[in-house]
């Protein structure tokens, strides 16, 4: 067993943290309109963070899921709004895995230098976000395809230039299509989710794309992308959980009521001790998720990821709610970062399968010993 990070990994974490600490503090974050700052995105590119998921063969850094874990932890700590997960982790991995040499050459350099943002558009309404259910259809035509369907809660679609739309081919094979947002027949209805992230309902009405937009045989790659994303979001949660715990303890050390600091009340001490337990259990599972998310043994992979999502979902709930509670009235205000952490944790609980969904998935594979 080895729980250490090697020097390069420590450096990756530190440089990311340092950059975010300086150029992405809470005050600056609050000024970012519509969830995207071009300056921050360029900063990520300059640090090489956008190249992390690009294979070395494509001039990227070929990072591992553990590298992703470290970056996502820092992104969580700073509550980064930009589509790092959607574009730099999910879309980039998908293109790297599925793309032909030509497609990779056309897209990866632009993703790597920050000039292109691509986001997956996969979930559909009425499926309870079951990743295997897709109704969007792709009908072949001369030199291309016609797409029809609706994708929901597509994070960052309004900041992206390219949507990676999953759709069924006539033989029910899953494919992904690279659809520029400006294509005729693509309509976005945009709004913000609780965590301040822009999202859109994406309507595809007779959208015509050329053959080179097709990424065929996408089933496995989509599942791989989901698993990496799930691990990444677990790491993001850990970054947030740590910050919320620290903020709460520091508040409890300062805030006086009844002539003493509230941290002296044993009821609150025990509550914060419980927060520590949740944080550490979550950290452990974020490591497990990072290590197992590319496992070739699919059953072992699924069990580990579901277990991680359950533990982390429960930590999100407990630590988030207690952090607000122990801050008293201040905890519910928009002015403190605490409520913003709380809201991101609320979203993470539901992303890539809720706590209950993963609890069920885990339970379904239980066998008598």
């Amino acid at each position, binding site marked *: 067993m080895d729980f250490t990070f090697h020097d390069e990994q420590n450096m990756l974490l530190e440089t990311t943290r340092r950059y975010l600490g300086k150029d992405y503090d809470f005050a600056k974050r609050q000024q970012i309109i519509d969830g995207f700052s071009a300056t921050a995105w360029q900063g990520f590119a300059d640090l090489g963070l956008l190249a992390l998921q690009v294979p070395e063969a494509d001039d990227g850094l070929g990072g591992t899921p553990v590298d992703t874990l470290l970056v996502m932890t820092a992104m969580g700590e700073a509550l980064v709004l930009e589509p790092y997960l959607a574009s730099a982790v999910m879309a980039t991995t998908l293109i790297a895995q599925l793309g032909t040499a030509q497609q990779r050459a056309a897209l990866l350099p632009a993703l790597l230098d920050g000039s292109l943002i691509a986001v997956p558009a996969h979930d559909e309404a009425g499926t309870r976000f079951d990743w295997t259910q897709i109704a969007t259809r792709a009908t072949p035509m001369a030199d291309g395809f016609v797409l029809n369907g609706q994708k929901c809660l597509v994070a960052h679609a309004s900041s992206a230039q390219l949507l990676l739309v999953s759709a069924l081919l006539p033989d029910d094979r899953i494919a992904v299509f690279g659809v520029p947002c400006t294509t005729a027949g693509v309509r976005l209805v945009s*709004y913000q*989710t609780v965590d301040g992230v822009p999202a859109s309902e994406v309507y595809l009405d007779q959208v015509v794309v050329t053959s080179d937009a097709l990424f065929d045989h996408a089933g496995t790659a989509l599942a791989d992308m989901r698993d990496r994303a799930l691990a990444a979001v677990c790491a993001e949660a850990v970054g947030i959980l740590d910050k919320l715990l620290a903020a709460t303890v520091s508040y409890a050390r300062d805030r006086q*009521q009844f002539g003493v600091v509230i941290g002296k009340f044993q009821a609150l001490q025990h509550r914060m001790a419980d927060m520590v337990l949740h944080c550490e259990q979550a950290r452990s599972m974020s490591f497990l998720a990072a290590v197992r998310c590319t496992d070739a043994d699919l059953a072992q992979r699924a069990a580990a990821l579901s277990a991680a999502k359950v533990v982390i979902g429960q930590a999100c709930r407990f630590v988030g709610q207690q952090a607000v509670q122990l801050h*008293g009235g201040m905890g519910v205000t928009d002015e403190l970062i605490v409520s913003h952490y*709380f809201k991101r944790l*609320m979203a993470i609980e*539901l992303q890539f399968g809720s706590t209950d969904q993963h609890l*069920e998935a885990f339970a379904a594979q239980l066998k008598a010993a």
Partner: protein
Amino acid sequence: MDLNFSNDEQAFRQLVRNFIVHNLPDDIRHKVTRGLSLGRDDYLRWQHILHAQGWGAPSWPAAFGGPGWSATQQYIFDEESAAGGAPRAVPFGLKMVAPVLMQFGSPEQQQRHLPKILAGEEWWCQGYSEPGAGSDLASVKTRAIQDGDDYIVNGQKTWTTLGQYAQWIFCLVRTDTEVKPQRGISFLLIDMASPGITVRPIITMDGAHEVNEVWFDNVRVPVSNLVGTENQGWTYAKFLLGHERTNIAGIGIGKRELARLKRVAAQQIKHGKPLLQDPLFAARIAQIEIDLMALEITNLRVLAAEAERRTPGPEASILKIKGTEIQQAITELLVQAVGPYALPLRRDAMAEGYDGEQVGPDDATALAAGYLNMRKLSIYGGSNEIQKNIIAQMILGL
């Protein structure tokens, strides 16, 4: 022992239910049952309708214009109001300052304010909390110094709910700094239109403007606005905090929201079946329903016990903790029920007159905001931790 309401009480329930069905405006009912934003006029419109019926102040004795209902009747009224989709009565005038005025106010103060509160013509807010005085209310610092016929008030109140609508604020102010903190507090009625008052909004995490900071800069308040005796304010403050019993557990709201949860869960499909039939989710709903049943009986026991000995006891703390936990749990399950579609936080779509495009199921619009907003329940009105301290001290004698 009989756990049924008497025939009279059941007839009373039917009367209230009919009245609400026929008199509550549809647009208000729609907002309440969907958790959409209510404005000042929504509250006032309903108060005027109730007042015209003689039901403007269910908890007031007949001598002051109340209907003279028993605690059980008030409980039934609250329950039916909530279930029928009526807005909660804004408590600050009707249920907070009014009982204090009835008990401790001068006849002039009673005549000046009570009829207007009853008629929904005077909106009140509560000026207890300060930045340094939340759970520890006795440490309020807002100063009132007598100058001729006036007090001159300086300081800051905070978390003032709906203070942006209020014409009056009742405040705890410090009138003596030399004595034990509880001994130097007075209870003062302040006209919000007085020069020197500034109200500044506090935006909460759901994006709402529900609470405010209120600043007092050399505000002149006539001495005649002092309630009772100078430096006795702590007694009145405690009287007020211990007063509201029938509705503290929010049983009616709990039932309404539970019904909403079941409605949403019946419409959501999981594995080809309504979510309401999903064993795990059904068990979660069942647990809440069972907790609510237990709380309802507990609530009725507390009311019965109080009717007998005529003084409120510390049991209200039990009702407050459990009632708020149940309401919070329901909002959590509502979010779970619609899944990620609960995440859009769209105050535009929650507001009056929105006719833009809907996102996700109809019922989902206000769920995120509802969950976020309900975090306050365990914080305000004496946090749940403080309620547990009260149980430990007053019930267990620890």
